[in-house]
């Protein structure tokens, strides 16, 4: 059975395709994304408070390496599909980074199916935001003059909204623990899935708007949008296996690898690689791969994880 939150996404896509005037106010969009980042961080942090931190260092490093490696995998594919250097690199960066909402949909699916996963998985999300973006910028600059303001960029990503809220939530959850966070659970834990549903409605509206653009960019965007996720999911799942993760953990790492960023990456690439076509990347990431992942991909990745860890 499809998870109920996915229906909200489809409703949004439908509304957009039929030209409905439905629009969620921008302030709501921002509020929901702030909420989801904080809530995911907090939940992970509460779990983090129950275990030794040192054991997580290898996981963190491997996750970062995975995010950094992905653009190097995808870039040649983009070039082979006749994308110019900047576009191939920028697109690759989006897939190197991660989509927090795709992650949330995957955890919801796991919970529904009663499959356990590493409770601190939010930490992986937080550390996988940045490396792919850095790799994408390196690829865009490769063999070219243009100097990159690495300091500014590092600052913008490390202290950007996504990483800051995820890590902030993680730290607060870890420090305050189960007891300390009890009074705020009615806001940050219980309504999580309902809020996710609303956010998916909004993302459906945006993704629906992107679908119309697919034609504009030719087959490259389709090939990458549909081909990259399963490919990267394999890489993610293999990494998860190598790290000895649980079934749910393997599925989540596959999902993270397969997912493409549509918050941190677009903004960062717009500043660092302005010559790249922003519409192309967002169309692939949000118009194609995002729906693919939440509707078709995640069930497959979970199935894959079950078999590989059986």
């Amino acid at each position, binding site marked *: 059975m499809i998870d109920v939150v996915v229906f909200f996404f489809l409703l949004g896509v439908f509304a957009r395709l039929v030209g409905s005037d439905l629009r969620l106010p921008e302030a709501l969009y921002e509020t929901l994304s702030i909420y989801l980042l904080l809530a995911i961080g907090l939940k992970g942090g509460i779990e983090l408070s129950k275990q030794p931190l040192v054991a997580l260092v290898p996981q963190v490093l491997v996750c970062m390496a995975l995010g950094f490696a992905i653009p190097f995998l995808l870039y040649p594919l983009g070039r082979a599909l006749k994308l110019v250097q900047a576009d191939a690199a920028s697109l690759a960066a989006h897939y190197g980074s991660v989509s927090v909402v795709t992650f949330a949909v995957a955890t919801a699916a796991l919970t529904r199916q009663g499959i356990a996963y590493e409770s601190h998985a939010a930490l992986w999300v937080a550390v996988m935001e940045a490396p792919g973006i850095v790799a994408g910028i390196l690829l865009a600059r490769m063999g070219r003059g243009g100097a990159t303001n690495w300091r500014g960029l590092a600052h913008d990503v490390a202290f950007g909204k996504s990483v800051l809220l995820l890590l902030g939530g993680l730290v607060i959850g870890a420090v305050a623990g189960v007891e300390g966070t009890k009074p705020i659970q009615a806001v940050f834990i219980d309504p999580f899935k309902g809020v996710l549903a609303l956010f998916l409605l909004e993302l459906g509206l945006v993704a629906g708007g992107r679908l119309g653009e697919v034609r504009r960019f030719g087959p490259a965007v389709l090939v990458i949008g549909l081909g990259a996720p399963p490919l990267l999911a394999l890489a993610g799942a293999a990494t998860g296996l190598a790290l000895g993760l649980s079934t749910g953990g393997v599925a989540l790492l596959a999902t993270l690898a397969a997912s493409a960023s549509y918050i941190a990456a*677009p903004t960062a690439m717009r500043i660092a690689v302005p010559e790249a076509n922003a519409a192309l990347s967002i169309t692939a990431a949000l118009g194609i791969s995002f729906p693919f992942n939440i509707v078709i991909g995640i069930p497959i990745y979970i199935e894959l994880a079950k078999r590989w860890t059986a």
Partner: protein
Amino acid sequence: MSLQKHPKTLLVIVAEAVLEKALVRDARERGAQGWTVAEVHGGGHGGVREGAWEADRTIEMKLICEPAVADAIAAHVLSVYAPNYGVALYFSPVQVLRPERY
């Protein structure tokens, strides 16, 4: 009324919101003493920009300044940002009352 008016130039820059911080910095470096920003949406050669996601937002920045300052800022924006970003800019003659502030 015997209001003493002084001619200045109003430079309006419509641009991707991601440029706001940089535009403020660049304008101040070139002599602008103030700026006003409104959130807008619209469309042009780069397609429709609806503000549907983070990198799709648009701002309109207004700078009242000396004509030479407006020219310097516009030239900078045109050469540095316009090639790769959605940018529209125009100049308009205006009159102000306290000329030393602009």
